């Protein structure tokens, strides 16, 4: 009842990532060229070396042509995929399994999203023709349901809850301020976070991730080939992905304080990686902080904090850059920005930098295992991805 995994059989040997942000003068194609060229350079390879590509994007193009056309990829397989906000991670997972199978030797996973051309606030989707009975609620509204539910369940008063959410936003902006590729590179004062205009429920604008443009790419091969391309590869320990049956949206026993999909994907990933105590064994994590309460709940679903304790761990600084278990050291979705299809690869890019000791001012001391977590959907109805990587 679980994936067998490919622990230590596949490596990442090169990565690229554009700056995320409002790239008014850059198209999705431009961003792809930038990220892919950087990844080629990082792995020291030529386009000819790559056997196949996986491109993740939710809405910035359809089909593999979205990638092959701007890069002039010469008659190679390019798979375009989508799995909501976990799209970028899905590109990694499918590309990694392809080399593990032996079908290809060297592949590339790429993610891109161009959100700022729409002219709208927040995310816009293109749903298939429907019957018009959907609730019509936006992403911040759906995720805002987490905060009061968590506060109620664990007896946290709403003022303290506000402080916890603010701390998460503050921390991620603090980290992003130390990242030249982040969308927002400034620390944001506590008062400003608290006073930001309300978007949904308890959530203000400063509780929401940045809507941005960006692209990231990874070069992937089997572990035995890794040193052909790079002296300092990183190795995949686990890749897990779960699509839930949407029980929470339909069953009264779901209480909006957890993502069962995350719990399951984390459990699966820890089995693959042989991790028994994620709180102690995971050195650092990039998690899906689409909204501040999401990060809070994820700390418990991923096993970093016991149930009902993540708010205390957050306030105690456990997840700060200099804490025991830094979370979102690159700024996260909150500060680095969230160009949907690129985000999962951006998370992996930070693992790449940290594990190789290239994270500069943000460098975490001697990280052993890193985790990336990517979520798509809404509480009660979502998909979840967890990876574990290391040296």
């Amino acid at each position, binding site marked *: 009842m679980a994936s067998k995994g490919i622990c230590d059989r596949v490596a990442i040997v090169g990565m690229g990532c554009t700056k995320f942000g409002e790239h008014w003068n850059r198209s999705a194609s431009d961003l792809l060229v930038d990220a892919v060229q950087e990844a080629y350079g990082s792995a020291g390879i030529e386009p000819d070396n790559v056997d196949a590509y996986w491109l993740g994007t939710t809405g910035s193009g359809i089909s593999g042509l979205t990638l092959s056309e701007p890069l002039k990829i010469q008659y190679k397989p390019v798979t375009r995929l989508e799995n909501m906000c976990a799209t970028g991670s899905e590109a990694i997972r499918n590309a990694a399994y392809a080399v593990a199978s032996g079908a290809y030797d060297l592949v590339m996973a790429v993610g891109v999203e161009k959100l700022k051309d*729409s*002219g*709208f*606030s*927040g995310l*816009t989707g293109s*749903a298939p*023709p*429907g*019957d*018009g*009975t959907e*609730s*019509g*609620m*936006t992403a*911040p*509204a*759906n995720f*805002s*349901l987490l905060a*009061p*539910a968590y506060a*109620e369940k664990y007896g946290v008063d709403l003022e303290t809850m506000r402080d916890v959410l603010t701390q998460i936003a503050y921390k991620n902006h603090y980290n992003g301020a130390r990242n030249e590729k982040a969308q927002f590179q400034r620390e944001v004062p506590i008062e400003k976070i608290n006073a930001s205009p*309300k*978007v*949904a*429920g308890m959530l203000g604008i400063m509780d929401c991730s940045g809507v941005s443009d960006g692209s990231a790419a990874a070069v992937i091969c089997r572990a035995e080939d890794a040193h052909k391309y790079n002296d300092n590869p990183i190795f995949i320990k686990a890749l897990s992905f779960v699509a839930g*049956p*949407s*029980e929470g*949206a*339909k*069953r*009264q026993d*779901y209480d*909006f304080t957890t993502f069962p999909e995350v719990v399951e994907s984390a459990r699966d990933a820890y089995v693959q990686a042989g991790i028994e105590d994620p709180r102690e064994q995971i050195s650092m994590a990039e998690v899906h902080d689409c909204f501040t309460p999401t990060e809070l709940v994820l700390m418990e679903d991923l096993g970093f904090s016991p149930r009902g304790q993540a708010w205390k761990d957050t306030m105690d600084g456990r997840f700060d850059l200099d804490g025991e278990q830094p979370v979102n050291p690159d700024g996260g979705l909150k500060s680095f920005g969230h160009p949907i299809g690129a985000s999962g690869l951006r998370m992996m890019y930070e693992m790449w930098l940290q594990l190789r000791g290239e994270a500069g001012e943000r460098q975490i001391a001697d990280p052993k295992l890193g985790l990336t977590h990517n979520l798509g959907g809404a509480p*009660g109805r979502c998909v979840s991805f967890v990876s574990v990587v290391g040296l």
Partner: protein
Amino acid sequence: MSGIVRYGSYVPFNRIQRSAIGAGRGERAAASYDEDSASMAVEASREALRELPEGAAVDTVAFASTSAPYSEKLNAATLQAATNLPKSVTALDLGGSTRSGLSALLAGIDMASAGRTVLVAASEVVVGAPSGPRESGGGDAAAAFVLGGNGTEPVARLIGRASCTEEVLDVWKSPGMPFAKQWEERFGADVYTPLLVETFGRALADAGVSASDLSKVVLDGTNARVFRGFPRPAGVAPEQILDGLAGTVGRAGSAHAGLVLASALDGASAGDRIAVAVVADGVDVAVFEVTDAIDGGRPKHSVASWVESKRNDLAYTTYLKWREVLPFEPPRRPDPDRPAAPPMQRAERWKFGFLGSRCNRCGNTNLPPQRVCVVCQAVDDSTVEPYADGECRISTYTLDRLAYSLQPPVIGAVVDFDKGGRMLCQLTDVDPDNVGIGDELEMTFRRLYTAGGVHNYFWKARPKR
């Protein structure tokens, strides 16, 4: 003898003070941004259909309005679908004059005499030109009647009637005109008053009663001046004339006579005789006699209870925005998608009838209906479970200030039904500052939005009224 077997009424939650318009005293009822004459007709019809007497099976549906949401596409079909009436019904839309509500009632009684059982719903959203008398004097409401003949015990029998039709330019609205116009009231009164007196007399003669035998007289028409000269020649005393709800609801067009008749029935006793007259492009008069069945035949909500249940601080600019009279800055969000015909057709029983499913294997309820049970994963093994009248409450909720709405913030709630089942839906007729977990809700049929000329109807939850 044929008559009214059941009745129901509906007055929307919002009121606008006439002082806010700068036009006199009292307040008028205003359909919310998510209501139209079809959705309000559904609400009134649910009241009338809730407890039909044995043997009464509706086989005909008529919808009367001068503000029908569609000028082509059967509005009565929306009514049929949302009330889960059988597809074998005969359905028709009526309109063209605010007299059409009472005309439809009389036609329905004729059909009942021919053996049919008829649901007649009259509903109106009255949009007058800003600062004109139709805007301030109008009101939005609906009334519905189930009419039956032999074999059904009516709460009120029709004992007499008369009609008169007059080609006269009183109120008119041509296609493309945003608002109806009305000729000088003094002219209308001069034409109509004698017609009313004459027709009223014929109706009483048909009923074999005299004016003094009437407990209540309901007078309604496009021109209030018509009634000034009516009581004396008609032999009607002022105290017989029922309050026309002008101060609390306003004149609800084709629904109005039915609404006031419903308020008369709310307070009637067996043996009471009630005359209803509507003056518009002529006159219809109906005389009813209330029967012993009235005490077991009243709807859940009286007209008075609807009138009392309200929020009365609607801003005039908000009202004008809701009626699409005042252009406004849209949210920086995509316009909602036009719902598509085939998915709507497939989902009809959910979208309109609000029917969920109950798993035959584990008993779990699924909203919307699921082919595979969310609890036990049984496949294609369920029965239909009705939810429109399901008791429900707020499990949790949020205010969505980003979502597209004519009345932000959207209040999204996780709604749990007492009989099982959960859905995420919008709340309506609710004060965002006065909503809490555990609040009891009831479901209401609404128009979520209109896109590409397609009205997107679905259900929302509201605090109990």
